[in-house]
């Protein structure tokens, strides 16, 4: 009988998740200990920053409550939780088809904080491979995990669950990549050192952008940020000179008027020899005159445009969710996991909102 005991970002606050996370080196030992518990035959331990889950195969067919209680006890004893912490700990306890369905949803990214993210697929695969290598899996879990990976791939390939970006930072990166291809030759200029522009620049740097220049009215703040991002600080009076050398401008000053105007950009474009210019205007009121978007090879996006694209991306993924659930139910039937438990209804409104600048 399949059992799954787990907790994730929805059930448990980060303080407790941190406390209950298995260190990578301890995972094989934990899997062995679980398998050694009475009645347990196989086990896989999945421990990521957002979830801790134990998948097991229990020898007795009708001992789900008993088996899940034993897993819960193991968890509390292993992490030496106080009676208060034990009382506060909320875990999901799943058996049979529910456990299989949950794993399929996890592998497909449907249970993730950022709906449809793909990193979890690799994390589950790594956890399973480790368990396989250490001999804690057997026929039941091998079958379950192999099928989960196949379902995960199908969900990814046959639906739009991964389509589009869901945060302002990732939208900025996606647009930059659609303009320049790769970002390794791209230089970024920050005009103003606001939090959101910093996050956007970090997203671009994490995807390979070559360098970042930071210009701020408060020069010390620019130097501080430049140090943090391994960039170069410019005095505020100097940023205009840098425009010709950069590919992406992120503007977020508190100026009450337009800082970047067509009169400034148009002559620069002649010197750029065909290199496009991507401008992200995060400021409110806006820093960049909208007429700048009319200049050839200049692509201007303000914060509303980025947010709207991120919202579309989230909606697109939510629309795909129904199709994903259908695929999972179909595969549960196909693979012979019995149908006595009906799936939990998909309630999109209960999904946690994606943090504004969280990279999926």
């Amino acid at each position, binding site marked *: 009988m399949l059992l799954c005991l787990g907790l994730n970002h929805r059930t448990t606050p980060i303080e407790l998740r941190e406390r209950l996370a298995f260190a990578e080196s301890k995972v094989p030992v934990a899997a062995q200990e679980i398998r050694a518990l009475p009645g347990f035959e196989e086990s896989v331990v999945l421990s990521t920053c957002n979830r801790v889950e134990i998948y097991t195969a229990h020898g007795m067919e009708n001992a789900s409550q008993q088996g899940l209680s034993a897993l819960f006890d193991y968890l509390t004893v292993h992490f030496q939780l106080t009676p208060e912490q034990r009382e506060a700990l909320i875990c999901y306890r799943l058996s049979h088809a529910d456990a299989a369905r949950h794993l399929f949803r996890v592998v497909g990214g449907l249970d993730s904080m950022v709906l449809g993210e793909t990193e979890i697929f690799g994390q589950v695969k790594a956890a399973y491979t480790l368990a396989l290598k250490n001999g804690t899996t057997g026929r039941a879990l091998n079958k379950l995990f192999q099928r989960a990976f196949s379902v995960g791939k199908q969900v990814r390939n046959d639906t*739009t669950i991964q389509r589009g970006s869901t945060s302002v930072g990732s939208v900025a990166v996606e647009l930059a990549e659609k303009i320049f291809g790769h970002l390794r030759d791209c230089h970024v200029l920050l005009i103003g050192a606001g939090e959101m522009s910093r996050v956007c620049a970090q997203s671009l740097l994490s995807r390979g952008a070559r360098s970042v220049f930071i210009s701020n009215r408060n020069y010390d703040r620019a130097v501080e940020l430049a140090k943090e991002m391994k960039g170069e600080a410019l005095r505020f009076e100097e940023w205009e000179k840098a425009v010709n050398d950069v590919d992406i401008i992120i503007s977020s000053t508190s100026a009450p008027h337009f800082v970047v105007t067509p009169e400034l950009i148009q002559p620069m474009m002649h010197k750029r020899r065909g290199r496009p210019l991507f401008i992200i205007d995060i400021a409110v009121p806006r820093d960049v005159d909208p007429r700048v978007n009319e200049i050839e090879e200049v692509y201007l996006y303000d914060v509303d445009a980025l947010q709207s694209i991120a919202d579309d991306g989230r909606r697109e993924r939510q629309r795909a969710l129904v199709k994903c659930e259908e695929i999972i139910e179909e595969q549960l039937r196909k693979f012979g996991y019995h149908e006595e438990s009906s799936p939990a209804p998909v309630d999109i409104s209960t999904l946690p909102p994606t943090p504004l600048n969280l990279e999926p």
Partner: protein
Amino acid sequence: MCDSSFVPIFIMEPSRILLLLATLAFIGGVIHAVIALRAGRWQESRWHLAPMALGFAFQSAFLYLRGEQHGRCPLTNFFEVLIFIGWCIVLLYFLIGAAYRLSLLGVFTAPLVATLQILALLSPFDKAIAARSKVNPWLEMHASVALIAYAAFALACITGVMYLIQDYLLKHRRIHALFHQLPPIHDLAKAIRRMVLLGVILLSLALAFSFKINVPITNSKMIFSWCVLTLYVVILLLMWLRALSARQTAWLAVLGYLLPLASLWIVTK
């Protein structure tokens, strides 16, 4: 040989059946891609190359049969020239477009090739040509290299269309299925320049071969060929000097292809 294209398939000659199959493969590929794109199910996959590869195989078989029949390069009439250009476009798509072919270039290439082949199938110009006893290699080289150059210009035209669509989507913030599948705009601009450069080199080579041909060539053919070369040299220079924006050069690559298309009629007469 058949004078009319409206002939039941069971009495069509084998080469025309091959051509029909090639056309169906390209059309099938496009229909499948358009349906997948509209439904948001398009995924980059090598399977999307299959209709192109199948169409190319049928085209190659057609040209082989015709070559055997004529005892020379199958460029004996307007019908065959259209098929040869279509074949060259697909060949260049496989050879040069490697970086882009998984990103919709095939979907944009297939309709053009299918259109050329439908035109060829419907045209009344597939007249029998007696096999030549002696083949002039310079003439054969001139014709085939010139048509490969025309194919490069055709790919520049297709890439130009892709550039203009992606530019529109970026400027107007229409971030949907097609946007996700089109290649980056900077790469498209570079691809246009490469295709035009390749076409200019090949056409220059073809015209250089024409000086070696002892057979007289009509003035109109030569004038049109030189006009096409001049047009693309000018486009190339404008690109090189960055005198125009990337969008304007994309328009030139698209509209410029009208001249080679029109000239085909003259040079194949």
